[in-house]
């Protein structure tokens, strides 16, 4: 009626033009977001598989397992992360962060997990980001993992390290377990100082609680091996109680 009649006027049509532009903008943005969510889901699912592969490690098959994990990780990078990088097309890193953050966090978890098992050290953010450079069209700004996603991924890493440590103790690799314990404690301590400056620290605060639980689970496992080992220390005349752990005592007692 009235409204309909009047909408042919010039003011109304300029409004329509403008809103058509806004509509295009919103449609593009939403489509892009959706593609990125999907790319992120793929990264997540394949990173999880890498993590499982690492957990297959035993004393005997370490090299073999790690090599496969590293190969799989490289595949995640080249296939799935690179697709995310392409979908982003060098822009909107912060605007669409929520759409890809879960995938990137899981990817950080997988990559740092592999690296720690290989070298016992932390894979740095800079090193990770260096591997992302070649994925990008050189004319575009490359996706760089931001500190926040890196730290959130690191927080989850400690959960996997805890699982690993419990398994390693079973396999007699107590030294490795102690190394993990120290590593996780170091990360936890460093994070206590970093967390309050993080952009949205609430997520991270609950992760810190879980992390402390993980640390304590490892500590309790080490404690229990230790007191058990200590029990016969005098009996055995050994000065290193840590050699008396399960799996090791093929020595007759």
């Amino acid at each position, binding site marked *: 009626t*009235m*409204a309909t*009649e*009047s*909408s042919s*006027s010039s*003011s*109304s049509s*300029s*409004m*329509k033009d*403008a*809103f*058509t532009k*806004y*509509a295009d*903008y*919103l*449609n593009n943005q*939403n489509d892009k977001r959706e593609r990125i969510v999907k790319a992120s889901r793929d990264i997540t699912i394949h990173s999880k598989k890498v993590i499982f592969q690492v957990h297959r490690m035993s004393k005997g098959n370490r090299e073999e397992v790690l090599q496969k994990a590293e190969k799989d990780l490289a595949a995640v990078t080249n296939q799935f992360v690179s697709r995310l990088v392409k979908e982003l097309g060098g822009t*909107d*890193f*912060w*605007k669409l*962060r929520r759409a890809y953050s879960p995938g990137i966090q899981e990817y950080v978890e997988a990559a740092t997990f592999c690296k720690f098992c290989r070298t016992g*050290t*932390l894979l*740095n*953010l800079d090193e990770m980001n260096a591997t992302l450079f070649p994925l990008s069209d050189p004319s575009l*700004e490359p996706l760089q993992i931001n*500190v926040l996603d890196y*730290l959130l991924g690191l927080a989850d890493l400690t959960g996997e390290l805890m699982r690993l440590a419990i398994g390693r103790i079973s396999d007699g690799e107590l030294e490795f377990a102690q190394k993990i314990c120290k590593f996780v404690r*170091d*990360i936890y301590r*460093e*994070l206590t*100082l*970093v967390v309050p*400056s*993080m*952009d949205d620290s609430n997520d991270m605060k609950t992760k810190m609680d879980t992390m402390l639980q993980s640390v304590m689970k490892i500590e309790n496992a080490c404690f229990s091996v230790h007191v058990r080992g200590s029990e016969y220390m005098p009996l055995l005349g050994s000065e290193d109680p840590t050699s008396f752990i399960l799996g090791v005592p093929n020595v007759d007692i």
Partner: protein
Amino acid sequence: PPLEKQFEDFRAQLEESGTLRERIRAVVMEIESTTRLIQASLLLVHQSRSTPEVLEKPKAQIAVLKELYNRLAGIVGESPGLYYRYHGDWRTETQTVVSLLGFMHWLETGALLLHTEAEEKLGLSGLEFALDVEDYLVGICFMSNELPRYVVNQVTAGDYDCPRKVMMFLTDLHAAFRLLNLRNDFLRKKFDGMKYDLRRVEEVYYDVKIRGLAANGDSVERPAAQGQP
């Protein structure tokens, strides 16, 4: 050791970004208190003061806003690409700014303040620091929420032509919004509210019309855009 070194770096980076954020917030607080001044002045529009008189004070504040957005753009511009990292810090306030600018603009011209016009008024044209389209749209919805109250008070004060003008404006605006594909989010909810604003204005128009109070009962044609609606 490299681990400590890296975390030292992180802390430095995050603290730097924290400092940046505090500088942003300081400007945003000034923006907010400027919008309060504008709001307080604009409230007089409901007390049947003449529009030009009412607009005088708040219009003077636009320059202040421009200056503040300029500072904001400067601060955020120091770190290219980080606009959306800190977006949440000025989002709400900017939506309010848009709603006020939009209302003033409409009072003056009877037309919708377009996105580009809003950017211009805030001195953002051509800057990397742009006015986010969704913020603009939410701001326009907020502006629409003010219109029913305005219409009611104008009629009370004896301006019987106001409902027709507002109704036609809101009808067009509503039709324009329908072009958008909104996700189920904040903006969609605000847009749902606009429907109720439109209905309320139509009811007032009907009240006026049925009593033969409408200034120009036989014409529902769109008037040429003049000064005050």
